[in-house]
């Protein structure tokens, strides 16, 4: 099967990271039969063993996808305003194609169809030059990440992640007994020293020392931070010192902002090369040990309904993921593999065209980001009640609210109670503000939803501020239209004013709040 490096042997042995489930999983019993068939080396063998419908019975002969032509300066803008030229990707059952319907629609290997796997291996090689990795197709990042959780996680394990993290993913392994430890963040994202501190102070009576780190290094969800090159190197060094596996969840990788745009060039291949060089190096690109599992997806750069992505990993993990896929959802659907293979193929956009689309997309998102920031400055900032970050990548903004200016804000000193129980009523105010936003017909995600539950055993510093005192933020997005962004910011400003300037006739509530603290 195609890999990004011809060597199929891993640099170091990481099999001790596998869960019992992953170790116990047997390969497909029919595989032994197929292996013997291949060993018999009879090209004309009469195959009466397969229960696969013959391709002559597939009820389609051709599929055509109408897509934007990317031969213009700003393809995304043209596409959005309807002025774009279009082109077609075609795939045929019985005529030559980059990936024919005949091949695409049969049962196949868990890793994906060879043509598509090669196309994505080439793409990965182009952007990351991974030292020694293999590509496994997925049904998107949720699918990829949850498979990896099952592959690595044992009941009772503790996994590490950002202290504010995406619950869509972090909730998944809770039901099978995996716990999370949230690592402190600052404006630059996860703090490497904090990862090391947790590992150094780990008490073995709590169970196995954490061996998995899950991060979203570009346009982190929800805080919008992007890890600098320096931090990535530090994190990788820590992973080597403490034998961690890193799950690099990177769906926003191509949406990095404030980079000098690559101008369209006549030289074939130059555009895509310059584009690739402008992006920050991934953890995969520095993964000499094979301890990084990079999770890529088309959801944010093509469409969520693609349900197609891929994992780059060492060969052991690749084989385990393939076996798991064969024992479950099976390889991804033919349609998506056909689309992507044609898109990257010689009759499609090819790599240059794909990069033009991506760059145009990120310029579009950057415009919207700036539009939102401008609207925020105009409608919200003057109130003095909230501030906003400037995300370097991704789709999210992190709006921080100054609850301490609220008449109902309460705070007490640490009376020697648990190191993680809150000393302020931030959570209550956050909840009430969320409801106020709803009254004003605008929705933002309250940070409480993203806050990882703290474990007092992980707290060492006497100056630790519990996370529930620091959930004074909301996650917003600029993925909508300019109209909704504008309206949303206006409503946000109004809601904040009303919330902060509400009458202080709430004395009966105050007693209740004090009793809770």
């Amino acid at each position, binding site marked *: 099967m195609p890999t990004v490096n011809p060597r199929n042997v891993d640099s170091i042995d990481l099999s001790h990271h596998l869960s019992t489930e992953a170790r116990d999983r047997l390969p497909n019993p029919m595989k032994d039969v197929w292996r013997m068939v291949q060993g018999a080396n009879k090209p004309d063998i*009469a195959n009466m063993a397969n229960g696969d419908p013959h391709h002559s019975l597939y009820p389609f002969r051709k599929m055509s996808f109408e897509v934007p032509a990317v031969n213009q300066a700003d393809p995304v803008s043209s596409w959005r305003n309807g002025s774009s030229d279009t082109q077609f990707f075609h795939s045929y059952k019985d005529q030559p194609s980059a990936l024919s319907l005949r091949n695409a629609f049969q049962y196949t290997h868990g890793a994906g169809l060879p043509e598509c796997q090669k196309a994505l291996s080439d793409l990965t090689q182009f952007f990351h030059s991974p030292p020694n990795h293999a590509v496994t197709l997925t049904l998107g990042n949720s699918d990829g990440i949850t498979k990896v959780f099952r592959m690595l996680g044992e009941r009772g394990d503790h996994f590490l992640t950002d202290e504010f993290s995406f619950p869509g993913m972090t909730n998944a392994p809770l039901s099978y007994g995996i716990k999370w430890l949230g690592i402190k963040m600052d404006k630059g994202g996860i703090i490497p020293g904090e990862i090391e501190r947790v590992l150094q102070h780990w008490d073995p009576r709590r169970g196995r020392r954490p061996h998995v780190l899950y991060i979203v290094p570009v346009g982190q969800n929800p805080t919008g931070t992007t890890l600098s090159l320096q931090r990535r190197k530090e994190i990788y060094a820590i992973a080597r010192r403490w034998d961690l596996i890193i799950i690099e969840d990177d769906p926003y990788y191509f949406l990095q902002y404030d980079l000098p745009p690559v101008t369209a060039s006549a030289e074939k291949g130059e555009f895509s090369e310059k584009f690739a060089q402008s992006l920050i190096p991934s953890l995969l690109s520095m993964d000499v040990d094979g301890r990084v599992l990079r999770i890529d997806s088309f959801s944010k750069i093509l469409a969520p309904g693609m349900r197609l992505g891929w994992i780059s990993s060492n060969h052991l993990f690749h084989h385990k993921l393939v076996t798991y896929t064969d024992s479950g959802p099976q390889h991804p659907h033919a349609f998506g593999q056909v689309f992507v293979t044609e898109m990257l193929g010689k009759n499609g956009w090819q790599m240059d065209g794909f990069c033009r689309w991506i760059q145009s997309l990120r310029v579009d998102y950057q415009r919207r980001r700036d539009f939102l920031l401008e609207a925020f400055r105009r409608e919200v900032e003057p109130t003095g009640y909230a501030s906003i970050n400037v995300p370097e990548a991704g789709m999210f903004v992190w709006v921080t609210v100054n609850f301490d200016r609220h008449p109902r804000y309460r705070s007490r000193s640490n009376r020697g109670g648990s190191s993680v129980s809150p000393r302020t009523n931030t959570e209550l105010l956050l909840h009430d503000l969320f409801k106020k936003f709803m009254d004003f017909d605008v929705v933002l995600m309250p940070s409480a939803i993203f806050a990882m539950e703290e474990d007092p055993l992980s707290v060492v510093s006497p100056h630790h501020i519990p996370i529930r005192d620091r959930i004074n933020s909301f996650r917003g997005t600029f993925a909508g239209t300019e109209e909704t962004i504008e309206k949303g910011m206006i409503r946000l400003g109004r809601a904040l004013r009303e919330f902060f300037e509400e009458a202080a006739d709430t004395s009966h509530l105050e007693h209740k709040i004090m009793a809770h603290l």
Partner: protein
Amino acid sequence: MVYFATSAENSKTSYKVDLSHHLSRETRARQPNPIKTIWKIAQTKVGTINMGNGDPHNTLYPISKIDFVVPSLDQPNPVQAWKEGNSKTDIISSYKDESCALSLKTAFAYGTGAGLQQVRGVLADLNNRIHSPPNHTVSLSLGNADSLTKCFRLFGDPGDSFLCEEFTFSPMTNAALPLGIKWEPIKMDKGGLIPADMDKILTNWDERTQGRRPHVLYTVPCSQNPTGSTLPFERRKSIYEIARKWDIIILEDDPYYFLQYGLNVDQFIVEQHGFTRALASVLPRSFLSMDYDGRVVRLDSFSKIVAPGMRLGWVTANNFFAEKLDSLTDSSSQHPHGFGQAFIAELLGDGGWGLDGFMKWTKSLCDEYQRRRDLFMDVFRREVGINGFATAEVPKSGMFVWIKINLEHHARYRVVKESNGDPRTNTAALMDELFRTLLDSGLVLIPASTFAITGSLSPPSGDCILDRVNYFRATFVGTDETICDGLKIFGRTIEQFFCF
């Protein structure tokens, strides 16, 4: 802090029977996704601006149209014509910005685990016309392997024993093993699994030594894989009664359901009520159709009737189980892909074949597979059966022929006297030799041992399944040439095997 109560907390099953105790520990511990909860709330109030979810806007999806060139059904035998390249074609299309059965705007957005209503609705309609399920919900799946393995996680805890047919599709039963689930095989005969044996296993079960009594049955009732048998109606009724008696969940894995043979479709009904109704009146009664308790989870797939690469199917279950399944989907593979949902919505919609047209295609497909089955059986009788070394029943549905090898006539067949649970004969060794010999001669069939389930009960009177693996699973899905050539090789090789 709870922001809004979820529908999961508010839903009540409207069944007489409470089946919640069948759920695994993991399923019970699963929490709803708070992001999706808020997303749902944001949908309810019109005019709300949702800046909470980071979903790419549909104006940025780079696909404005998909054309699918499909066979026209405007002929009596569409599959035949299609195979021979004589068929007319139709083009069905999905659009982003023009009206169609399922807009690409919707198909390519994030959705919930169950899949889009446009597709679920059409499949619920198909279900209703064929099975009239008493009170069930349809969720989309990524095919039967996906939904079946999700059911293992939904219902199975480590140490559980599940029931299955003694010869079964082992890639699937293997998938349950690393989850700590064991299999207890039920004996079969020409009609499929034997209900009396299922009852016997459950009656004799000793929870002190064997763990929790089995509470799940996995069955492939039509074109059972590998034996090719189809459960007759009487057996299905008996099995359902046993399931009620012992409180068993039935996983009805039915990808070959629409490939039935010898069906006489009444033309009068076709004209009066459409093809689907006419087909429904001659198709076997499914477990779903008799499921008044809500204990059946039925798995349907497009793999065998459209193409395996569709990776699309549908699960029919009671509302309570359906919600739990969707929750697991939301925590893992997510909803099915937009392409497949768009294709099915168009194909089964008014602008495409419609449901009746789709049933006409599948009936035409049946006729084609029946032709191949008949060819297989004819050549088999002529080239193989004539010597008496091998026999085969004629399958009533699906793709498989279960060929019995009469090893007791072989000169080197041995029986030993001991009966301590180990095999008493050298059946397995002889079959292995025959398999390799066939391979050398240029034919591949799958030996029964690949599908045999050994189970935990110490076999009475030395009954060991390895003494009964004297079968091959053959398929007739290849070309006519493959069938004829393959069976000729089979006939020659088996004669040599027995005589020399």
